[in-house]
């Protein structure tokens, strides 16, 4: 494929060569005819060269004008005008030149006249072809299949005519007439395609009219010049190739003239209505502004302002206001060319006349309230239109448009503004949805942080004694819970253990958990009795926990010297204890109320210290309610008996293996790796 630039150059070169041969051969033919000699070149040569010239030029313009996407309507007309201008100027220069030469022999020479004629004809044809190509683009703007077909037929007919001209075969007169009639009809049909005119604005229309007028002038000039010249030559020589006998040229001329005329008239008659079209365009742009206003980090307020502005400019309102009902900060009022005082007067007036649903927030219909304004004294407005603005089916505000003229609003305007109001409602709804999405995102982010905090609060390594080992397991669900366990060496023979569960979930749970950790680490070091530990912890927590929040916990002091476990249970799940000597397990359900529940010093009545002696082989399993309350598919809970059974299966194993086994049993029971609560457990095996 040749590039279009190369084609343009080639076509131009071709046309120039064709034209030079045309001029040369035509003069030769004419010369020999005048002298009565047999012509040195074939008689058909000028005609064929003319065809070639036309075809080359046709392609030249086709590639120059048709392929250029950047041209708009006025540009196209401007191109035609410019081509016409150049052609006319060149023609005028030759005319001036010949008139300067005066009545010398050369000027009166028929061959010289023929030369001038050929130049003029070439310029004329090139102008016509430029116009033809531009008109084609205009006609085919917003093309349909049907239109394209018609155009192809038209071009084909023109081509046939062109061939016919050069071949000079004599076909019956009726056939020629038929073709001419067909072309004529096609010209008229095609000329009816004037859609582009509608897209011109007022200024462009004037420009187009001027350009078309000038085009008419050029056409007239060339028709006059060419026909004058051809007349003068044809009187001298019968062999002269007359422009008029060339049907193709005539067809082209007719087409260009007819379409120019049509365009001129259509534009002229469209002038008064162009403002309407422009306004429609502005409405579309306003519409777009409202719907796009959300994306560009704007707020609701800007949507309201755009709505007010667009509505006012679309219906030429003299004043307007927009009242938005807002739950948090009262009603907001946006005004346009009206004082708040005035708008309040009108609203009060309507209210006092008990006009229902007018500017009330509950109104769900557009209302024309002009008639009610008549009774308001001293008001400058005579027309009033009100629109509700709804978001999710709820009216959030009212838009009121005012005009000083009575009957100032028509149905069309009502429809447009109502569409604006709807669009604004949708925009605001989108805006709010987006806000919500942001909130959710923020909440998720918060949870992530809480989860990291919670994880970091759990110990990385656990204490161990000469006669016991500890292992722990913690797995949390998506929602952050507040399970906590920890160990602390008090002195060389005592180790403190704790397991706790904070009520609630999320960030607050993680927060309370960290408080619990702080309390554990500070109080455990003081070698307190477990009951004393709980009392002090409760006292400290009362100031941290909000109403309704509490922490269940069990605190142990394992003493390897006395082989005792002293513990205090504060509302936490009872410890599962395996006694190796008896081979039995039991849950240590002692008295104890959770921390934070009793907010006075009376708490000491609700907790107690218990003591058990441990022996080698004994096992103690601490856990949180996430384990006992874990459910299977049937909705049954894992519960205490299953936990007990799981432990009994592996009493001989190490603490780590026991733990693994219990967790494995738990997962087998729940039947999925998805957990809906936190699983936390700590296993102590005595040696």
């Amino acid at each position, binding site marked *: 494929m040749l590039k279009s630039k190369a084609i343009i150059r080639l076509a131009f070169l071709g046309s120039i060569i064709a034209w030079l041969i045309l001029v040369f051969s035509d003069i030769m033919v004419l010369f020999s005819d005048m002298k009565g000699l047999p012509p040195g070149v074939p008689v058909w040569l000028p005609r064929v060269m003319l065809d070639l010239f036309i075809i080359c030029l046709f392609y030249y313009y086709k590639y120059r004008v048709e392929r250029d996407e950047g041209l708009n309507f006025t540009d196209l007309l401007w191109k035609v005008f410019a081509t016409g201008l150049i052609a006319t100027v060149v023609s005028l220069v030759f005319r001036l030149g010949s008139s300067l030469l005066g009545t010398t022999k050369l000027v009166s020479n028929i061959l010289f006249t023929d030369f001038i004629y050929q130049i003029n004809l070439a310029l004329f044809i090139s102008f016509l072809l430029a116009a033809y190509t531009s008109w084609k683009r205009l006609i085919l703007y917003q093309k349909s299949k049907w239109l394209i077909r018609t155009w192809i037929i038209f071009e084909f007919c023109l081509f046939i005519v062109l061939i016919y001209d050069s071949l000079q075969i004599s076909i019956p007169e009726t056939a020629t007439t038929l073709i001419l009639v067909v072309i004529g009809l096609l010209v008229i049909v095609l000329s009816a395609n004037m859609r582009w005119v509608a897209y011109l604005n007022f200024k462009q229309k004037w420009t187009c009219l001027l350009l078309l007028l000038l085009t008419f002038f050029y056409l007239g000039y060339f028709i006059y010049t060419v026909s004058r010249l051809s007349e003068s030559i044809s009187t001298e020589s019968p062999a002269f190739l007359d422009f008029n006998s060339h049907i193709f040229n005539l067809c082209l001329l007719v087409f260009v003239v007819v379409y120019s005329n049509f365009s001129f008239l259509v534009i002229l008659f469209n002038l008064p209505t162009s403002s309407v079209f422009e306004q429609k365009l502005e409405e579309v742009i306003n519409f777009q502004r409202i719907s796009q206003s959300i994306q560009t980090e704007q707020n609701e307020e800007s949507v309201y302002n755009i709505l007010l502005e667009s509505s006012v400019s679309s219906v030429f309102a003299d004043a307007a206001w927009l009242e938005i009902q807002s739950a948090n900060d009262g009603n907001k009022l946006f005004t346009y060319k009206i004082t708040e005082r005035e708008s309040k007067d009108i609203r009060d007036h309507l209210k006092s006349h008990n006009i229902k649903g007018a500017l009330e927030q509950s109104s769900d219909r557009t209302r024309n309230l002009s008639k009610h304004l008549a009774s308001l004294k001293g008001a400058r407005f005579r027309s009033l239109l009100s629109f509700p603005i709804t978001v999710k089916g709820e009216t959030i505000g009212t838009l009121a448009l005012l005009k000083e003229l009575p009957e100032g609003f028509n149905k069309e305007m009502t429809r447009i503004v109502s569409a604006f109001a709807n669009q604004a409602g949708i925009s605001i709804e989108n805006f709010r949805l987006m806000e919500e999405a942001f909130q959710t995102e923020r909440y998720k982010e918060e949870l992530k942080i809480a989860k990291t905090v919670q994880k970091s609060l759990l110990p990385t390594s656990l204490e161990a004694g000469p006669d016991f080992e500890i292992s722990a397991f913690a797995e949390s669900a998506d929602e952050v819970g507040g399970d906590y366990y920890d160990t602390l060496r008090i002195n060389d023979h005592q180790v403190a253990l704790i397991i706790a*569960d904070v*009520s*609630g*979930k999320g960030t607050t749970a993680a927060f309370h958990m960290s408080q619990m950790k702080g309390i554990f680490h500070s109080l455990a070091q003081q070698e307190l009795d477990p009951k004393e530990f709980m009392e002090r912890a409760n006292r400290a927590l009362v100031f941290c926990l909000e*109403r*309704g*929040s*509490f922490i*269940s916990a069990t605190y142990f002091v394992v003493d390897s010297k006395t082989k005792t476990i002293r513990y205090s249970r*504060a*509302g*936490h*799940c*009872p410890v599962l204890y395996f006694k190796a000597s008896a081979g039995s397990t039991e849950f240590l*359900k002692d*008295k*104890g*109320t*959770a921390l934070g*529940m*009793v*907010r006075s010093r009376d708490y000491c009545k*609700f907790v107690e210290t218990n003591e058990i002696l441990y022996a080698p082989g004994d096992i103690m399993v601490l856990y949180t*309610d996430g384990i006992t309350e874990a459910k299977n598919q049937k909705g049954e809970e894992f519960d205490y008996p299953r936990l007990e059974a799981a432990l009994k299966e592996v009493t001989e194993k190490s603490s780590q293996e026991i733990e693994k086994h219990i967790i494995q049993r738990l997962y087998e029971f729940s039947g999925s790796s998805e957990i809906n609560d936190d699983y936390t457990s700590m296993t102590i095996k005595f040696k």
Partner: protein
Amino acid sequence: MVHIKRLQEDGADIISVIGEIDASSSIELDLTIAKSLGEGFRKILVDCSALEYISSAGLGVFMSYIEEMKDKNVPLVLFGMKEKVANTFSILGLADLLCIRNTKQEAKKLADELSV
């Protein structure tokens, strides 16, 4: 999911809790108790016979009213608890803090005694 019904009997407000109370549904229970208190009932009974499960958040709701009711001298009595639910109350040590009875009659009787 929880369903809460209210019924007035002999000057006492009986709140029936049906279903499960977890973190989200505990708000409903909270609102109901607050409403009952706000309406000025002198005795509030909670029917737990259809309560299947209660989470720590649900327990927190009862807990959070203990002091307020003590100050206002409005007895709050729970009754008809299933064993599992009762177990939850007892593990957390709430059984010692709240008044819990087996039947409605007992609950009413206790409420009458306390409100005098």
